[in-house]
């Protein structure tokens, strides 16, 4: 089989991965939120490429406007006193912490990748056939690792959203855009927005009660739960 490369799709897939990585690992929170908006825009574009204009619209409204807006709503509550400090996640992690998280995320993504390999056998012959699926696997793996790694609540919330988008892309890539999978993705987008909104309200409340340090002190018990 000769691989036919669709340059638009490859380009979008590449940009998606780049935006996701930048959003996940940028310590500057405002910039990361802006990158999330870019990521949502690219997601909307890839729904268009999947021939699902309904989902593209849902992504624009739910993902870009409402979820992205929620992040800025959270950032607005941070006190603007000491210039850059509030908008910057300065927490440091030990090496053992990082390595364990990376190994766990890698193990999960190998498992998922194996299942997809089994599910879409033609990927073994021409991996460039489904650039968006490959992008989705990379995004899911990194976002999972980032979710387990970060301690700052806002960054974890963002990692959850990126992870969710990766899962939706995988779903559309594997199951196509039949009504069933479109309904699942729409429910998922709504839930992601509601969850983010709830998390953001909580962050605002926590900041007003205890200050910014409270957002980073979420340490030990979650480590066990991972």
């Amino acid at each position, binding site marked *: 089989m000769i691989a036919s490369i669709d340059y638009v799709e490859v380009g979008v897939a590449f940009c998606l991965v780049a935006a996701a990585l930048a959003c996940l690992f940028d310590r500057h929170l405002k910039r990361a939120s802006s990158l999330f908006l870019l990521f949502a825009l690219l997601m909307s574009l890839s729904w268009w490429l999947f021939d699902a204009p309904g989902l593209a619209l849902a992504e624009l409204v739910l993902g870009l406007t409402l979820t992205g807006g929620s992040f800025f709503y959270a950032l607005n509550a941070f006190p603007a006193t000491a210039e850059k400090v509030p908008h910057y996640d300065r927490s440091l992690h030990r090496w053992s912490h990082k390595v364990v998280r990376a190994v766990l995320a890698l193990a999960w993504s190998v498992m998922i990748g194996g299942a997809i390999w089994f*599910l879409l056998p033609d990927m073994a012959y021409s991996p460039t056939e489904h650039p968006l699926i490959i992008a989705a696997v990379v995004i899911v793996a990194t976002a999972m690792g980032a979710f387990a790694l970060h301690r700052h609540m806002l960054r974890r919330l963002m990692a959850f959203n990126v992870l969710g988008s990766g899962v939706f892309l995988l779903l559309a890539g594997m199951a196509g855009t039949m009504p069933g999978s479109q309904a699942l993705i729409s*429910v998922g987008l709504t839930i992601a927005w509601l969850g983010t909104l709830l998390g953001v309200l909580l962050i605002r409340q926590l900041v007003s009660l205890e200050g910014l340090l409270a957002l980073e002190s979420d340490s030990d018990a979650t480590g066990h739960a991972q």
Partner: protein
Amino acid sequence: MIWRFGLYESTFEPQWYSHWALLAILVLPIFIGLLGAFFTPRRLFPVALACLPILLAGALLIVDYLQVGLLRWQWDIAGVELSLRFNGLSGLMLMITQWVGTAAAMYTPGHLQLTNPGKHARWLWPLMGVLISALSLIWLAVDLLTLYAALELMGLAAVGMLLLSGKPDALKAGMRYLLLALVGSLAYLLGVALLLGYWGELDLKSLVEVVEPSPVSWVAAALIGAGLALKAALFPLHGWLTPVHENAWTPVSALHAALVIKASLFMLIMLWGILLPDALFAPRLVAWLGMLAIVWGGLIAWRAESLKTLVASSTVGQLGYLMVAFPLLLGSAVSPLPGALAWEGFWLQLMGHSLAKAAMFMAVGNLIIATGESSIKGLAGTSRRLPLSLLIFGIASVTLMGLPPSAGFTAKWLLLQAMVMTQQWVAVAALLIGTLLTAAYVFRVFRYSFDETAPRHQYQPLAPGMDLIALCLALAAFALGLLAHLPLALLQGGGA
């Protein structure tokens, strides 16, 4: 699994009133919850009156099920098939949900009056309504889409309720719970994506016909299992449970421990039954983790300093009993008799634990309100002044310990019989150790309460009914053991 979960065509159409009853159990809780936000009830009777139509609708559905057998509903909305079914098991779970929900709702006005939590408290009512509706939907739904939506709705409502107390610790615990619950449901969604991609079915009845063992079904089962186990606080993933209960309001804790974590467990056993019909390894792994959970949860509860930690850790241990039964419920290698015994024991244990744990949280909540202290040591001298609350705690713990004639005893007896028949001696040992540990932490509470050296004179009097509701729940757990044949008959009706 097909018979047990009612995944087959129904013989007769549901009767006309069943459609209305279905609408009532799914919509009325939300509607009444919204009314509650506007009129904030201050007494117990209006709440009881408002809950009555929901309870009646649930009873009507059971009456119809007894007459015509399995009830099924199916709708096609824009190419998406949604289906619901009502069998004996859904009926039992629905009843437990509605009655525990009613008890928690009736307990709430008194609790709010005494703790005086501020303006946000009114939002507890709609959230409670959404929670009950979502739970009812989970017991009835038989397609992966409805299950997903209901699971998420339930999770968000539960997080919302936990946050209402507004203390920083509650917010932190709530945030952790929110994030883990959301990621857990993404794992579930990824599993569903694999199933949908490979077999193209969302409806469980069609899925059960096409599914066959393959790497896709194993990975999907692993993803769904991991996501749901995280939400159900099964043993190594239980880290979020204690801090959440530590800071939540009493009726919220009661609802959460009694119902919310059970819903994820219910879905887990149903979906694994479909995806892993012949699996040996996965159920055994769960059973080994369950044995560790029984011992670990018991030890943590035994060492606990605060009352709520004790009750929450005991949930981890009690869920272990349910996990230990997994190899007997799944897998075709189990012979019919122990399989059936374990099936009955599993659900009886689940229902008994729901009732007893709700009663226990309320009893502990009453003790904390009355004494103003949340540590176990603060109970000194309560045996003389608050005998009723302690009695409720005692009756509830009889069920948890599994002493006759409670539901816990009947359930553990059934499970033990099944384990002895299949010669799982380690599981038998774990069950017995669990009973001893439960006795140890329960009697620790009583030891402090009979301590007369620190007599206290200031006790906050409780609102009317707070003790009575908890007592009714504890007695219901007790009676469920004596009258176990009634729920079991309903359960078997679905397997006939």
